[in-house]
């Protein structure tokens, strides 16, 4: 039942994207959107993925929204702090290793993605839950506190991203 709901929500999202791209919500757009959504999901299931599509990409919408809001807030926060660094010409960098408390591959990739999106930090390597992060010296990474032992706010949000 959960899988069927997952497939229905995926088809709904893809149809919505199709309607936005067509800039019209007529019957033709809705029907073609539904057909293409179903086709693309089944194509991915049979030819691209080993597991089913919903098992890979079923995400909790609430957590995704939380993730995006928190990410944008962090991007701007770090953006302003980076301006200070440019003015003061502080450009000592360090490469440090960070072990995430997340276990899920997709969540770790989203964390790495968020770190790279934040100005002043770039993920340069990923090995399991261990991330190699390039950042400015003596800088607490915007998204995570690099020297901290506890889970960051970001990791707490990403922990609940799977449905």
């Amino acid at each position: 039942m959960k899988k069927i709901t997952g497939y229905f929500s995926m088809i709904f999202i893809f149809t919505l994207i199709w309607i936005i791209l067509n800039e019209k919500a007529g019957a033709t757009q809705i029907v073609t959107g539904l057909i293409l959504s179903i086709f693309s999901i089944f194509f991915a299931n049979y030819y691209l993925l080993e597991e089913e599509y919903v098992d890979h990409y079923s995400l909790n919408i609430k957590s995704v929204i939380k993730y995006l809001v928190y990410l944008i807030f962090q991007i701007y926060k770090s953006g302003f702090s980076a301006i200070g660094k440019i003015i003061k010409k502080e450009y000592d960098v360090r490469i440090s290793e960070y072990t995430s408390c997340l276990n899920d591959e997709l969540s770790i990739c989203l964390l790495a993605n968020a770190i790279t999106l934040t100005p002043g930090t770039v993920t340069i390597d990923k090995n399991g839950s261990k991330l190699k992060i390039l950042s400015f010296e003596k800088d607490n990474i915007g998204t995570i506190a690099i020297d901290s032992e506890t889970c960051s706010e970001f990791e707490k949000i990403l922990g609940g991203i799977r449905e």
Partner: protein
Amino acid sequence: MNIIISNLLIFVSLGFMIFGIIGIFRFKDFYARILISSKVETVGFLTIMVGLMFRTGISYSTMKIMLICLLAIITNPLSTHAIARSAYLSGYKTGKEN
């Protein structure tokens, strides 16, 4: 009113981009330049897109811009990551290690 907010946001985004470019020229270390260049492509880009959203109002174009923003958020870090990773794997050292 929307046009004023839009112009203001586009102006702010240009400010972010200018600071990013100044940073690239001011910093002498390769890794520091990589770190600061992500500022231009994320903060500047997102602000300019929000500015454009205000300009177009509630319409399909705004939703298209939101889709573009979402795609940019997912795909933007890839180029920065690929360049930084290849430099790291090639043994390129940070300014302090040199």
